[in-house]
């Protein structure tokens, strides 16, 4: 089995004439164990490798990929990508980046995580489930109690001098509890991600999943009205995908972003700052370089509500002109897809207000703890959204009765303008993070 470095070098060596070739190889090992009713529910071991090749010839881009190729197949992948390029249209902005120096990030690879054996993982999953179902008499079962970890490596090489490799480890625990009272059932979700299972503290995950389910028991449907809304980090993070799409330079260039003509404008309130930072180590999206091999960096997209610019890869930077550099935001879903603009650690910067202070400012409003249907109910092009929500009534600076079967609706610009306070409780969910956020007013629909 060839090393990743050998694979990408073999592919690049198959370049012909003045064409540009870039090879991206990755491999990963992943284990997941879930527990149910004090037994192992499922245990999955995964091992995968693959190679993706971009060929750019006369401005035409072709792509091909192969799972677990031999060195010969790596070359054949280049040939297929070349054939595909011949059918694409030329675009003067297609081109590979020149190599740039980057600082390695050894912190994201945790050697000790390998010391956690499969038996340890099984025990951890069983402990996690048992702990979750023994916290509260109303929570005696889970929908999901799972721990998992992964080791992955990436190598990229190109005819323009890129030749980089890195490795990372990730570990996570996730719990969905079921709280039952009478004939009513409510669910509670919690999640945590770290660099290794040996440093993962799973008890708080179970505790939070229990608390969030129990708090929803007895929920009713509220009347339709306009109220102040506090989004907790779970709920607020659900909107970050819509924002990521709108600050993606590819969408901007193609007329698919509501922010397209707003650079330099005060779009949001002064409390709103939005950042992408691939070098922030407490974010799970940390990586030394992006999917084209360019160094990761920090990009402040909104500062105090002012839109500064967008996230770029090499293509969008070249197409934007005016000396726009790539922001190191070329990302890909894996070796099967071409790189495109994406986020690394994408987060709303923390404010200085505590969660309780936010509640105090939202009297008569609602604390939204979960939103659903964002992928279909929010339009990143028009900025309109209407999503399902559950949460708790806020009165006298504290949370009260649970609410369900309601929707919150607004537009992204109105919501950003309406940000009246940002909490200090920034929390990352996978590679997106946010603190609690107070929105001055939103339409809440129920009865």
């Amino acid at each position: 089995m060839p090393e990743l470095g050998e694979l990408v070098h073999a592919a690049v060596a198959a370049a012909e004439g003045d064409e540009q070739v870039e090879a991206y190889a990755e491999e990963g090992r992943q284990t997941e164990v879930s527990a149910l009713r004090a037994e192992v529910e499922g245990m999955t071991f995964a091992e995968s490798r693959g190679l993706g090749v971009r060929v750019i010839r006369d401005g035409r881009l072709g792509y091909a990929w192969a799972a677990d190729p031999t060195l010969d197949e790596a070359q054949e992948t280049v040939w297929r990508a070349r054939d595909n390029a011949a059918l694409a249209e030329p675009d003067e902005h297609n081109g590979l980046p020149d190599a740039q120096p980057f600082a390695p990030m050894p912190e994201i690879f945790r050697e000790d995580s390998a010391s956690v054996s499969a038996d340890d993982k099984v025990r951890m999953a069983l402990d996690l489930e048992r702990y979750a179902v023994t916290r509260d008499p109303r929570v005696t079962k889970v929908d999901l109690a799972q721990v998992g970890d992964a080791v992955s490596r990436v190598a990229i090489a190109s005819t323009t001098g890129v030749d980089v490799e890195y490795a990372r480890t990730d570990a996570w625990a996730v719990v969905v509890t079921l709280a039952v009272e009478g004939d009513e059932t409510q669910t509670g979700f919690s999640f945590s991600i770290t660099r290794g299972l040996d440093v993962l503290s799973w008890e708080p995950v179970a505790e939070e999943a229990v608390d969030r389910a129990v708090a929803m028991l007895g929920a009713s449907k509220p009347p339709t009205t306009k109220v102040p809304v506090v989004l907790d980090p779970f709920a607020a993070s659900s909107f970050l995908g819509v924002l990521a799409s709108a600050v993606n330079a590819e969408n901007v260039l193609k007329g698919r972003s509501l922010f397209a003509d707003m650079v330099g404008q005060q779009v949001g309130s002064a409390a709103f700052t939005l950042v992408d930072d691939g070098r922030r180590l407490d974010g799970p999206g940390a990586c030394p370089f992006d999917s084209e091999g360019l160094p990761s960096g920090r990009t402040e997209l909104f500062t105090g509500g002012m839109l500064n610019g967008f996230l770029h890869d090499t293509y969008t930077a070249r197409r934007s002109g005016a000396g726009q550099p790539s922001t190191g935001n070329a990302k890909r879903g894996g070796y099967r897809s071409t790189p495109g603009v994406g986020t690394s650690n994408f987060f709303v910067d923390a404010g200085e207000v505590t969660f309780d202070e936010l509640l105090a400012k939202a009297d008569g409003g609602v604390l939204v703890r979960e939103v659903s249907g964002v992928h279909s109910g929010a339009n990143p092009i028009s900025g309109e959204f209407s999503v399902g929500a559950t949460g708790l009534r806020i009165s006298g600076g504290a949370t009260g009765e649970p609410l369900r079967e309601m929707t919150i609706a607004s537009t992204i610009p109105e919501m950003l303008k309406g940000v009246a306070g940002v909490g200090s409780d920034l929390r990352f969910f996978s590679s997106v993070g946010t603190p609690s956020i107070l929105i001055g007013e939103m339409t809440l629909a129920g009865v």
Partner: protein
Amino acid sequence: MLDRELVAEILAAARRKGGDFAEVFVEERSSTSIRLDDAKVEELTTGLDRGAGVRVAHGTTYGYAYSNRLDRDALLEAAAAASAALRGDAPGPVVDLTDRFGPGTNRAERAAGSLPAAEKVAWLREVDEVARVTSPEVIQVTGIYFDSLQRRLIAASDGRWIDEERPRIRLVAQVVAKRGDVIQTGWDGPAACAGIEFLDAHPPRVTAERAAKRAVAMLDSIPAPAGEMPVVVANGCGGVLFHEAVGHPLEADAVDKEASVYRGRVGERCASELIDGVDDATIANGWGSYDFDDEGEPSQRTELFREGVLQGFLQDRLRAAKMGVQPTGNGRRESYAHPPIVRMTNTNILPGKEDPDEVIRSTPKGVYVRGLGGGQVNPATGDFVFGVSEGYLIENGEVTTPVRGANLIGRAIEVMSAVDAVGSDFETWEGVCGKDGQGAPVGSGSPTLRISRITVGGTGA
């Protein structure tokens, strides 16, 4: 793809600790995807994927290991890893592997792989041209063409050996229209398990025109109303709603975990008596169709509701064995990289008797939904939400102004019980359903339906 002797050896290795059964799933998939955006063919990608997964099950406990290496060493390693999930120490037997043949539900007349890529590119150019001439307000068009051929081998310790090919084809048009500051989008994307003959029945120009007209129609839209009201759901859209709100809680894994609102309610009325619903993987060339599911169980048509009375659940092997019922052929997986889970196939509400126009005419005031952007359900509580991608006001029995930014929210049993009219028309919709991190191609279908009362979430009056 692999010879029987090797597969039998792997199955035997996987049963070293016994268990109820062991299974090997091998897959080879070639695919072509072409993306036209911004009036240019931006990307043409071909992929070759292959890999194998080994599963061992005991009760509802399973171990699963996969690799995209197909050599003997890698497969035996996967068998050893998967069997580590079990506690037993008595090896289980492997029955002689014997072919099982299906009816050929997804036969392709003209294989997409045999067509030069240049002709596929030409379809996308047509999409771009047609969408742009539909209206001067169309500012952006994305066309996506996709085809794949998946060859799967499923073998298990009970002797099943199934080799099945699944061809897939899809053509999608996404259109952006703009007037002043208002930007709206439209989408259409027919899909099937078929060859390129599918595009004779669903020509690219029709797909392009539909997407463009939807985007342009929504430019006139006003903010959607908020609150409870009657909603008429157009034919096709109701299937998406049925899939999401009702289908997911009927999946036996949710039922087994006591995380389904339908648990213990088989034989009870859980929907309006106007509702007959099925999950049907036997529809010829359906997007969610197959001969055998990904556990090697034959596909079938499963009755879910008869006159609103719940008939049963969707099963895979593990859940069916536990509940003491027959599997329904609903064990599916995204690829060799995923263990099978309970999934829907083509989930349909069957047509009723009413004239669909009359359903609208007899609604004095409400919302008409002609496009749903997909949705989400919590199977344990039955709470669901859907984004409305194309909606209109109904005023005095007529469809009038388009509305934007709407969604529908409700609870499965209450909403399905509130259906008070079912049309005689029928339309399907194809999508990709996500569950437990796995995507599955699913079809859904319905006639025109009226829900007498449901919460519409919008910002308007």
